């Protein structure tokens, strides 16, 4: 869409009766650096002579020419004349262009550094224009150009006429020519028609050129790209480009009438011109695609087609063991670099290899020419002079029509012993005696110590598993001892039982049956009381029968004899001490073990 910022001086009122009617417009009013705007000064009632170009800091003005035309304003026909001036900015900013005639108003021109702030004609969405000097129209040859959209545009696909190979990158040029003012916008990038080809790396910005073809001004945009075929065969290629074109909706009769009357008149009289979106297509281009030969194809062929050279180098030829060294292979030339690949080295004797990585540096905008660099880190596993073998790279050359193999020379490097290996060896001499540290430390260091025979491990003892076994075992021993002591009450009870039985035996041996029975009764009562958790007075004959079973009778008899001895005396003559001792001992032992 064309934005027009115009300051019109209307020819109305007496104030303007004696002054020429003039106005000026600028198209477009918003541009970016590298583009130009057209300033048109129009006079409605007199022929404009040369005007004095304004002086605006940051803008340059150049008169392109004069025009004369018929204008209809408010139904009144009048002849007008214009001066066309090109305005080119040197810097970005918002400029005020003063009126060039006494009655014209100042104009505003906005110049941006990028496209983000405006919707300008002939813009490509999301892309910034390439800064370029103002285009100079030149006359071109229209022969062979197939015009479309009523002659307001053309699309051409320029490519080599030779046969190409599958996967080969073929540089192509796509030219789109449009008539400014008629074609108002490009609605997308050109695209190739057909699924058997890929169009890679369409240059970000087209080259712009103004030229005159068949007497009409054209803005020609040229994209450089790379085409690649995915299968062999004969193909016909076309390129589509979406455009917005202003076309006339006049009937053909009116067109004929307009031709009779002349353009400027009808342009105003029948001004039914409407914008229309359309896709213009180029003339078909024929391409013969060959399959890559299978004979002689190297095993390491990765699909690279083109003309390549390789070289290799290393980041250092002298290093310390353990230090990484970078082996680089440079593949330069022209071709399909996306298929240029190399595994470098999977394994080299006495070296540790790492996976390589690659980077591509293009020398043209489409990535057809350049250099791909493979970098592989290596670490030497052995000291001394080592040789890194040469690298090789296979590709298909479409010029010679055969597979080629490029080879590099082996590289010799010297590996010194690691610094860490000598950490416990005293330096024989200063490597850099004049270094600042060395010179300063001679005075600043405290003196050496006398050697002592005391040796220890650097790893603290308490962090060594073998040593930790000692405190762990000690802790276990003490824990075991404490647990052992926890069982003492039963052991003590057992010993008390033994002592009681021993005392009872002594009484028995003395022959005092009364004392024996009383002692035995008390002993049993205490024991049963502890076992059954009952007070001694609650241990009755019924309780004995219920809990002791067959022993209840003996214990009951013992209790009865003891009571008899206690209350009547002499009831226990002829006491069988050994029998009673056995009974008491059995009961007490059961109680201790329980």
């Amino acid at each position, binding site marked *: 869409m064309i934005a027009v910022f115009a300051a019109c001086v209307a020819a109305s009122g007496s104030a303007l009766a004696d002054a020429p009617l003039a106005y000026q417009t600028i198209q477009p009013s918003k541009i970016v650096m590298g583009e130009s705007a057209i300033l048109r000064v129009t006079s409605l009632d007199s022929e404009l002579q040369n005007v004095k170009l304004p002086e605006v800091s940051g803008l340059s003005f150049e008169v392109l020419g004069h025009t004369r035309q018929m204008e209809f304003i408010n139904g009144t026909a009048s002849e007008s004349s214009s001066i066309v001036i090109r305005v080119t900015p040197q810097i970005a900013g918002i400029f005020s262009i003063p009126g060039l005639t006494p009655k014209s108003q100042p104009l505003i021109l906005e110049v941006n550094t990028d496209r983000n702030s405006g919707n300008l004609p002939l813009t490509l969405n999301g892309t910034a224009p390439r800064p370029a000097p103002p285009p100079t129209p030149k006359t071109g040859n229209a022969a062979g150009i197939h015009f479309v959209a009523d002659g307001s545009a053309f699309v051409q696909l320029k490519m080599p006429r030779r046969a190409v190979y599958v996967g080969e990158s073929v540089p192509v040029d796509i030219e789109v020519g449009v008539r400014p003012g008629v074609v108002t916008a490009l609605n997308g990038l050109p695209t190739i028609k057909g699924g058997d080809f890929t169009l890679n790396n369409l240059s970000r910005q087209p080259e712009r050129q103004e030229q005159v073809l068949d007497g009409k001004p054209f803005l020609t945009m040229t994209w450089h790209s790379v085409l690649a075929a995915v299968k062999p065969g004969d193909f016909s290629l076309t390129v589509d480009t979406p455009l917005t074109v202003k076309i006339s909706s006049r009937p053909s009769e009116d067109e004929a009438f307009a031709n009779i009357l002349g353009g400027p008149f009808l342009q105003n009289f029948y001004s039914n011109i409407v914008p229309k979106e359309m896709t213009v297509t180029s003339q078909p281009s024929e391409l013969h695609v060959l399959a890559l030969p299978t004979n002689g194809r190297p095993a390491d062929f990765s699909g690279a087609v083109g003309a390549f050279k390789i070289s290799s180098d290393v980041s250092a030829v002298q290093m310390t063991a*353990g*230090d*990484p060294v*970078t082996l680089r292979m440079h593949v330069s030339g022209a071709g399909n670099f996306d298929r240029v690949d190399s595994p470098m080295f999977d394994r080299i004797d006495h070296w540790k290899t*790492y996976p390589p*990585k690659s980077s591509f540096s293009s020398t043209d905008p489409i990535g057809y020419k350049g250099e791909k660099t493979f970098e592989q*880190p290596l*670490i030497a596993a052995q000291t001394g002079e080592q040789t890194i073998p040469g690298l090789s790279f296979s590709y298909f050359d479409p010029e010679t029509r055969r597979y080629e193999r490029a080879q590099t020379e082996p590289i010799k490097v010297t590996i010194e012993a*690691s*610094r*860490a290996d*000598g*950490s*416990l060896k*005293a*330096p024989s*001499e*200063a*490597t*850099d*005696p004049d270094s*600042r*540290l*060395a010179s*300063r*430390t001679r005075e*600043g*260091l*405290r*003196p*050496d*110590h*006398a*050697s*002592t*025979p*005391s*040796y*220890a*491990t*650097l*790893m*603290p*003892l*308490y*962090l*060594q598993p*073998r*040593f930790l*076994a*000692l*405190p762990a*075992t*000690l*802790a276990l*021993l*003490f824990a075991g*001892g*404490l647990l052992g*002591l926890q069982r003492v009450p039963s052991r003590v009870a057992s010993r008390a039982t033994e002592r009681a039985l021993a005392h009872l035996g002594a009484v028995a041996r003395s022959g005092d049956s009364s004392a024996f029975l009383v002692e035995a009764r008390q002993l049993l009562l205490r024991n049963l009381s502890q076992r059954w958790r009952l007070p001694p007075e609650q241990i009755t004959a019924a309780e004995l029968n219920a809990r002791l079973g067959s022993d209840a009778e003996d214990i009951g008899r013992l209790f009865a004899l003891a009571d008899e001895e206690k209350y009547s005396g002499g009831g226990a003559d002829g006491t069988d001490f050994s029998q009673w001792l056995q009974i008491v001992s059995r009961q007490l032992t059961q109680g201790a073990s329980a």
Partner: protein
Amino acid sequence: MKYLTVAASVIAFLLLGANAGAQPPDTAYSAAGLYNLANSYARAGKPGMAVLNYERAALLAPTDADIQANLNFVRSSLHLPLRPQGRFSRITRIASPAAVAWIGVLGILVAGASLLVGKMLPQRRAVWIVGLCLGGAGIGFTVCNAIELEPRVHEAVVIAATTPLRATPVPMGDPLQQLSEAETVTITAAHEDFALVRTASGHNGWVARADLADVVPGGSVR
């Protein structure tokens, strides 16, 4: 009595075994020897190796003022930050780690014996409580010393003049910054020939193992 005899014999055997097993002759160092070696490196203009051996000497003899003074001197000469020593560090490092380890063992013995005595002779309450406190103090001192020293076991010293700190453990990894020679870093992980380190300023990155030397050989990898 026979139990006590057996227990004493086992303990004596363990003590002798632990002492002998913990000190293989090929990994034993002398603080004086490491200090003199570090002085040699410092005089030869090799600050990385000098700081490494000072650090090792300081590990064995933490109270040696000469070691600390020369270590600080070399670090100051290289404009490297000095390691701050807090009160906790000063208190816990008044003895060598080896001595502290034996103090811990003694503490276990005393505390364990006190507990046994307390069980067997509860009436001697004061004796076993004092013993328990002494033993606990010995164990606590050892634990504090271990807490203080354990991070240092994972430290390493940069011994190469230009050592890049990389984002990934590969030789072509993007360098994040350059480490200075003699800078002490903490190793937190390892991958093939690279170690993940944390610098004193808190930055993390990968460094080639060849450019580092462990303060405690073999102790850096967790």
